[in-house]
């Protein structure tokens, strides 16, 4: 007998090779390694390909074709993760991208390529979608670069971060999150990574612009134009211009008022008057107390989402509402046309539900920061806190108390922002006995 039966196995060492075979199959993983490829933003793609009226064929085949068109255009404009393309109009530096892109490798002693995949992609993902393999286990989630929004920067709220802002975050990491410091990398490497983040962001915004254009301007089987005029002048140029303009969009920094001495602790007698003014503003015109709470433990208005999570929450609501309505609709007396429309819509809703389940992280609320802990994500220097207060935090619910743009009027004066900074810096040390001596001010156990 050539093939041993199972009953024979128990008596023969031949069982060992069988198990080894299975084990090797397991270790080999899931097939050959494919070259890395960018993933479409399927949430936005599905949202913008909602069926409208009569399609000549199934929604899924129509939507796939549109999505493939966008993928192809993006590859033409930006290349692949292994071979990025920097069109002249993108303002991106091809040499820096080469250093950051592709698999980790070294062709010259002492120089390493593939920095993004070595250091970043396991959290931020190959496509910069903030959905790398580790992303789901982190809180907060890694940043999704594709909407082109960044929190910790020196510019006006609606402006992009400067190069120095991106480099600062890479260099220092983000305290209180999983983002580590990359201070041990050479400055040229950090620079290359900052360029690659810009590349992924510009690519992501271009993708969103293409899908939105298609939703707004195309119907049926219309194809996206692939001309220079459209792709470069109309789509890419405005995005690139915003990045270029960031370097001139820094907010003004007011002089530190007399009586404020940041070289001393926030609650030092030298700062006492300023801290008292800051405290009054915190509870008054600054409005900080509304979300950060009277205790500053971050226990005010606390059931909100940031823009990245809100997009998923809102899409999920739309889908859930649509599915419920479609379940409640009786199809028995529908005309054939209405029935076809109903079925197409149901197909889209189910596909969207699947995409939200598989291609998005479960939305999480963003709690206001506990200011008693002394952990400041955007940096702990007084200047960093001043910037967070002045413009608020882009993408987060945190509003600004400074003017919304050049020439605007702030909720408080620029000098007053420094007093609030001073008060915030005193919060981890402040103790006025109101909470009771048995309760720690730094409520680390408050979750």
């Amino acid at each position, binding site marked *: 007998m050539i093939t041993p039966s199972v009953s024979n196995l128990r008596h023969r060492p031949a069982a060992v090779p069988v198990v080894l075979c299975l084990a090797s199959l397991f270790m080999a993983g899931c097939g050959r390694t494919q070259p890395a490829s960018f993933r479409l933003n399927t949430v936005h793609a599905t949202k913008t390909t909602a069926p409208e009226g009569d399609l000549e064929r199934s929604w899924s085949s129509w939507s796939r074709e549109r999505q493939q068109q966008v993928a192809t255009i993006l590859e033409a404009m930006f290349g692949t993760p292994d071979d990025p393309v920097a069109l002249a109009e993108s303002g991106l530096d091809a040499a820096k991208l080469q250093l950051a892109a592709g698999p980790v490798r070294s062709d010259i002693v002492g120089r390493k390529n593939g920095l993004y995949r070595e250091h970043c992609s396991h959290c931020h993902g190959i496509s910069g979608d903030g959905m790398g393999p580790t992303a789901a286990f982190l809180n907060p989630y890694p940043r999704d670069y594709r909407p082109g929004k960044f929190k910790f920067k020196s510019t006006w709220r609606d402006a992009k971060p400067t190069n120095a802002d991106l480099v600062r975050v890479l260099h220092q990491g983000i305290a209180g999150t999983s983002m580590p410091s990359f201070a041990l990398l050479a400055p040229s490497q950090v620079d290359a990574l900052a360029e690659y983040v810009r590349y992924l962001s510009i690519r992501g915004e271009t993708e969103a612009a293409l899908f939105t254009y298609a939703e707004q301007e195309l119907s049926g089987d219309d194809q996206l134009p692939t001309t220079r005029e459209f792709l470069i002048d109309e789509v890419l140029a405005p995005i690139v211009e915003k990045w270029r303009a960031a370097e001139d969009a820094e907010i003004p920094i007011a002089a530190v008022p007399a009586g404020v001495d940041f070289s001393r602790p926030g609650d030092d007698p030298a700062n006492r008057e300023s801290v008292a003014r800051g405290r009054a503003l915190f509870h008054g015109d600054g409005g900080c107390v509304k*979300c950060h709470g009277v205790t500053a433990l971050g226990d005010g208005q606390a059931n909100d989402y940031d823009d990245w999570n809100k997009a998923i929450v809102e899409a999920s609501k739309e889908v859930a509402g649509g599915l419920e309505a479609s379940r409640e609709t009786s199809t028995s007396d529908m005309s054939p046309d209405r029935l076809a429309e109903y079925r197409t819509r149901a197909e889209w809703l189910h596909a969207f539900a699947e995409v939200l389940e598989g291609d998005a992280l479960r939305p999480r609320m963003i709690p206001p920061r506990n200011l008693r802990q002394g952990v400041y994500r955007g940096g702990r220097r007084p200047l960093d806190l001043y910037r967070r207060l002045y413009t608020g935090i882009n993408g987060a619910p945190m509003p600004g108390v400074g003017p919304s743009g050049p020439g605007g009027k702030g909720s408080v004066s620029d000098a007053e922002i420094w007093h609030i900074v001073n008060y915030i810096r005193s919060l981890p040390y402040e103790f006025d006995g109101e909470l009771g001596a048995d309760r720690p001010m730094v409520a680390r156990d408050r979750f």
Partner: protein
Amino acid sequence: MMTSSRLVVALALSALAVAAGCGPQRTSAPVADAAAAATIREGLVAASSAPSVAGEDVVAGSGWASLKGRFVFAGDPGQPAALMIDKDTEVCGKVAKLFDRSLRVDAATKGLADVVVFVRKSSRVKNPVSETPLVFDQKNCEFLSPVFVARVGQPLDIRNSDPVGHNTNIDGTSFNQLIPAGQGTTYKPDTEMGVPKAVTCNIHPWMKAYMILRKDGYVAVSATDGTFEIADLPAGEPLEFQVWHARSTGPSGAVGLQRPDLNWTPKGRFQVTLQADESKDLGTLEVPAGAIGT
């Protein structure tokens, strides 16, 4: 020597490991066609010597006209839900109880309020942008304008008439500033919106309004009785109008009507060419029950 139970366990574990695959199931997104991408790229990097031949739209016609109509809702709007007020309860909702305003239908006339009608593209604009600030106010923890219309470049006077602080967060503009109790600020919007965007207050999550900023200002919002009118429209050119409602079930808020005579599309658009000094009345525009989520 391996016993049968061990073998079964080993086989089961191996099978499980293989079946478990490689992590969570992501959908199969379409991928690029590399050959087609290369061709497109050639066109993009080719010397940009060829000047753009796409000329500006030829301006046709002269004079101005107006368009009006009335939206009615064919479905049953139900009762508006009371909002849950759980912040600053000593102020919010004290003047009057607060209700969800996203679907306002006049009980007597069935008129549908807060439908936004705007021109997608026009070649001429009659009136320059006003320098007079438009007031956008909030009181009783409610935005006073459910749907607010302004032109790009026109200053907005964003006020807070409440004795508590609010932050005004205008989606699509990056304006999110704290407005202290009884104070205000000015804001000059510089970006046009393709569709109305939500205005919220993060401190009081029930607060919601919509805002649309357009360059040409050819926007109307239907009144409580469902009527709307846009004046000073350029005559003699085909105008495409977009129709939007917050609770629409169409794509991006588009309101689809069965009006083939106006070329009304599922994207919520219709086309009209107006004659000089014409005052066109579209009459009653019935919004079917399914077009608005109730």
